[in-house]
């Protein structure tokens, strides 16, 4: 594989991990979040600071990064107990703007210069770069997807599904909305934190704009494109939205326009996503594959 392809594939895999976390919050628990990039950023900044200021290796700092992201997720998930739907959407937009402003304006986080000189990851004394780094990210993606698969099948996951469908009915059956909403937020943001650590060690330079609000939109678009609440949706969405700008590259000036047009047509005509239960892709597949599920 050429370096160009490996770079794109690595970014796609890292994005897929973040979107898996978003899927737990939005797809499984039904709590709309438009600020997921903030948690991706919190993971990346904690990894970068632990690596450059405390001199910790990736493996030593990783548990801490995941715990920090999860705890911040718990803290910032608290608004979700108070507000719902549109209000929650706007609150999470606000959280994203505030977190970005904190990164950009507080000198401890490197301010406008960002944080550079983040070391590479070593595994058994081997320096990971290019293809080997891609394999590392892929391994983490497999772990995260296994966690999602298990989460969707365990009792907590079923409780989250119940909350998503009807919060009042679920609460009357003895499912605590507080506990399971916060659980979904902690799991989802911890996954974003993990991806943030990988991103920081891959780019080796991070700045506040890497985690701005438009990034959150892109992440949510990936999830919607793939199909909200579906296990494979994050990977599919990240792969398509990661590849589209590269495929549209010959269009030069017009490529962002095409990219937004594809997104708009997708949401207009297939709002349940490519893997959604009533999507065109599924119907075609059911017709082509005899005996396939529709």
């Amino acid at each position, binding site marked *: 594989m050429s370096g160009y392809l490996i770079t794109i594939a690595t970014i796609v895999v890292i994005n897929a991990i973040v979107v898996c976390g978003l899927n737990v919050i*939005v797809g499984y628990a039904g709590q*709309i979040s*438009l600020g997921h990039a903030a948690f991706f950023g919190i993971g990346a900044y904690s990894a970068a600071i632990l690596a450059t200021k405390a001199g910790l290796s990736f493996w030593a700092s990783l548990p801490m990064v995941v715990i920090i992201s999860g705890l911040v997720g718990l803290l910032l998930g608290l*608004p979700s107990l*108070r*507000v719902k*739907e*549109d*209000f929650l*959407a*706007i*609150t999470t*937009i*606000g*959280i994203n*703007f*505030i977190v970005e*402003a*904190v990164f*950009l*304006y*507080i000198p401890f986080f490197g301010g406008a210069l960002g944080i550079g000189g983040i070391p590479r990851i070593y595994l058994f004394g081997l320096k990971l770069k290019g293809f080997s780094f891609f394999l590392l990210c892929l391994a983490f993606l497999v772990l995260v997807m296994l966690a999602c698969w298990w989460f969707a099948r365990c009792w907590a996951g079923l409780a989250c599904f119940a909350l998503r469908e009807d919060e009042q009915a679920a609460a009357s059956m003895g499912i605590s909305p507080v506990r399971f909403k916060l659980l979904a937020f902690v799991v989802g943001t911890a996954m974003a934190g993990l991806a943030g650590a990988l991103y920081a060690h891959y780019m080796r330079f991070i700045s506040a704009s890497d985690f701005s*609000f438009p990034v959150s*939109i892109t992440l*949510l*678009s990936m999830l*919607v494109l793939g199909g909200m609440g579906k296990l494979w949706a994050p990977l599919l969405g990240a792969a398509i939205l990661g590849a589209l700008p590269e495929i549209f590259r010959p269009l030069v*000036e*017009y490529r*962002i*326009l095409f990219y*937004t*047009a594809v*997104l*708009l047509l997708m*949401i*207009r005509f297939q*709002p349940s996503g490519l893997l959604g239960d009533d999507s065109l892709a599924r119907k075609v597949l059911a017709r082509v594959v005899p005996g396939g599920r529709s």
Partner: protein
Amino acid sequence: MHLFLEQLLNGIAMGSIYALVTLGLALVYGILRILHVAHAAIYTVGAYVGLAVFKLSGSLLLGFGGAMVFCAALGVAIERFVYYPLLKYPPYVPLIGSIAVMLAIEELCRLVAGPYILTFPAKLPLAAVKLGNVTISSTLMAVYAITALVLAILWYITTRTEIGLAMRATSQDMAIADAMGINSHRVVSATFVLGSAIAAVAGVLVGIYYNQVYPTMGAVPAYKTLALIVVGGMGSVPGAVIASLLLGVAETLLIGYARIPLPRDALAFIAMIAVLMWRSEGLLGSR
């Protein structure tokens, strides 16, 4: 004291402009329960069309009129093509659609008019006013006058006309309004016409006020006005106006006097989250 008064006047102008953008958003939210992010893109288009018509015809009045007509048509097109068919889905679906529309319009503006900052060399036909040792410039006077005029017209339409009555009925309960013989889809379109025309006025005014028109001028207002309709109480038009004025004044004074390490755009969101936690229905909301 002198400086304080000038800051205050600037703050009120800032707040008036926020109010003009937020009005359309509050109207649309009140009737469709959709977060119309693309409203800010309509405002950008308004500034561009206003500038183009002004340059071609030399008349600022025609500029305002052209921008209002064009934006009203654009607003209705967005409503018909994107929002109305998506109403049956969960609220995040039209929200993402709206964000996609906003990004697409921003890109179109960049492709058509170029990525540069254009100047808006219009003179407003209003005299500067001197109050003691404080001068209110003609631009500030225009911002005040136009905002007051728009608010008065809007108040008249919503409370004294039949279409206003239909709008209020539809925003309370669309199904019942339909049953009472109101063509609710037409009312929704009328709301978009009204909101988008006001956004066009805001766009042209901002263009003149800062003497700048550029493709991403709607980016920050897009999300800040969302915060404002939350603070004002979702769908409450008076609440949105009060919240806008408060934010405009607070931003200007805080930036002028207090040394806060965060930018002014973050302040709006901190205020918004504080209001949501303390009074989740907003300042004038009821629910």
